[in-house]
């Protein structure tokens, strides 16, 4: 069953087309990511699902029911807000029980459910504290519990991990993923972090300028970017100009080539090219070596176990023809 369906949905703010004729079908139980830079329309799409925005044109369905014109409080959809939006005047337990309270669930029952939700996000016994007394990571979990306690059919997450430090972010990524698996709820999350989208999502929609540039599994989006924008934004792929691509013996169009698919030296069945090293940087597991070849800048990942070529040195690099991916003419 389709959880969320967008048909030609647009949302304009004056002359700005924040969302421009978007078609989207998100399946039930899916972990779906909307990825894009700020201002690309991904957050507006999320707000259209939550009901905070109404489409300028187009049609939205949530589990087969028409959603446009329906206020947020009548949608069985809950949101984890970017800065959590916890009620500062209520205790943690009252925050989590809020959704059940406004729906008229009795006090004992809703507080019990809230306690269970807090235990689920590993914050048992924190109920009497105030949001101001919790750390960012803890507040994030409370926001999650407050949304999930309502048993929504769709959970929307707006940059849920944006404010957390790296370690906590990685830990939360895993927890979110396993939580989604065990609950079976459709998760839709917005992020500008491609790593997060690739590691968590079942499918990714890459947004730019209010439009979906590409929609597919993380592997598809990463390996076979449809447009230069996707190649550039998802990971740090080399976008090769048409004349350079042609000089390597391919068709005359832009192409993407992942740095990790390029190796130092030649090899059997590999396409060689040479370039002058202009920069190197140490990334821990590998060194990124940038070379200038026939007017194009190409980055390659060289495992840390290999020697790093010196700057100014001319080196030979190679790649497999199948890893080079030619793209549409559109930018």
């Amino acid at each position, binding site marked *: 069953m389709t959880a969320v369906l967008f048909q030609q949905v647009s949302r304009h703010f004056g002359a700005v087309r924040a969302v421009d004729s978007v078609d989207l079908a998100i399946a039930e139980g899916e972990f779906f990511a909307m990825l894009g830079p700020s201002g690309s329309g991904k957050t507006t799409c999320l707000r259209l699902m*939550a009901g*905070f925005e109404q489409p300028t044109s187009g049609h939205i369905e949530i589990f087969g029911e028409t959603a446009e014109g329906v206020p947020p409080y009548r949608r069985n959809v809950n949101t984890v807000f970017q*800065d959590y939006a916890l009620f500062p005047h209520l205790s943690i337990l009252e925050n989590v029980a*809020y*959704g059940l309270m406004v729906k008229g669930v009795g006090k004992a029952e809703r507080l019990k459910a809230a306690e269970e939700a807090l235990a689920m996000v590993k914050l048992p016994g924190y109920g009497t504290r105030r949001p101001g007394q919790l750390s960012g990571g803890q507040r994030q979990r409370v926001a999650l519990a407050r*949304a999930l306690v309502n048993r929504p059919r769709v959970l929307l997450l707006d940059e849920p991990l944006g404010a957390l430090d790296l370690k906590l972010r990685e830990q939360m990524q895993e927890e979110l993923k396993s939580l989604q698996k065990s609950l079976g709820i459709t998760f839709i999350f917005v992020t500008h972090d491609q790593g997060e989208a690739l590691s968590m999502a079942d499918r990714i929609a890459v947004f730019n300028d209010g439009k979906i540039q590409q929609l597919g599994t993380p592997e598809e989006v990463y390996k076979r970017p449809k447009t230069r924008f996707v190649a550039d934004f998802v990971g740090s792929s080399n976008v090769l100009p048409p004349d350079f691509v042609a000089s390597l013996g391919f068709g005359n169009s832009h192409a993407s080539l992942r740095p990790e698919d390029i190796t130092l030296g030649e090899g059997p069945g590999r396409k060689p090219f040479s370039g002058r090293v202009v920069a190197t940087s140490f990334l821990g597991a590998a060194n990124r070596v940038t070379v200038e070849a026939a007017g194009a800048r190409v980055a390659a990942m060289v495992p840390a176990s290999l020697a790093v070529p010196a700057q100014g040195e001319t080196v030979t690099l190679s790649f497999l023809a199948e890893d080079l991916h030619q793209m549409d003419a559109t930018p």
Partner: protein
Amino acid sequence: MSAVVDTSILARREGASGRLSDFFWRNPKILLLLMLTPPLLWLGVIYLGSLFALLLQSFFSIDDFSGLINYEFTLATYRQLLIPSNFDIILRTVVMAALVTLASAIIAFPIAYYAARYAKGKWKVIFYLGVMLPLWSSYLVKVYAWKLILAKEGIITWALAKLNLLWLLEAWLSLPVVGGSSLSISYTGTFIVFIYVWMPFMILPIQAALERVQGNLIEASADLGGNPAQTFRYVLFPLALPGIIAGSIFTFSLTLGDYIIPQIIGSSRLFIGQAVYAQQGTAGNIPLAAAFTVVPIVIMGLYLWMAKRQGAFDAL
């Protein structure tokens, strides 16, 4: 000479001001003390001191024959407050102040809400001007203007007559207590003018409180299933409550103490302010005037204590 120097420690500025800056930087507490001493002296000696002197006066009594103050400690003056003619004054004033406060809050909230949530740029300036402008003209001028507006020959009566609604006004004025022979000599008139004059003091604190409420809290409430009425009751109102309490302290205490508005507009029955004025002036009964003055202080203290117990300041 260029402004860029190549020493790592810059030379002290010349003269006393340079030495003084360095001294205060090293001893910030002395600077704080210097800045706080004048206002603390003002508050402590002049304000609290005179308040205490006043409180002391209320425990003296007046000799009925000679009219002289009897400097003996007694509660007799406070007992006088309880005789019906005096107690009526207190009751009348407190009820009026409570109603004015309630009505001001109800009228001020939507205005403050609009200003805090929606008004931007030019409209915000217009809001501030609109709220503050009445404060720029003399209070007496405004009150006398209202006397004309509310008078039998005034614009309200005229407008209602044109609309064939005069019967409505007459029906209202024929009611007991709130009525009278015209709006300008009824409690209704006093009430209207009090609300008008104190309105800015209610709007501004509520607006300041609402300004601090993040917009996404309202969205979060709706997202969790709260309809607009529930969002108001459980999120917006509790978060605005400190502002409403602050505003109500202004309107309530200003109404409790005012002696000009009820004198110009309303029935000739006294309010606390007028009673104080009469007792310390013409009657020369300073102890009773002092005892009357203590009443609003006690009421405000009780009010704040109750507000705190009800959790009105939890959102602070």
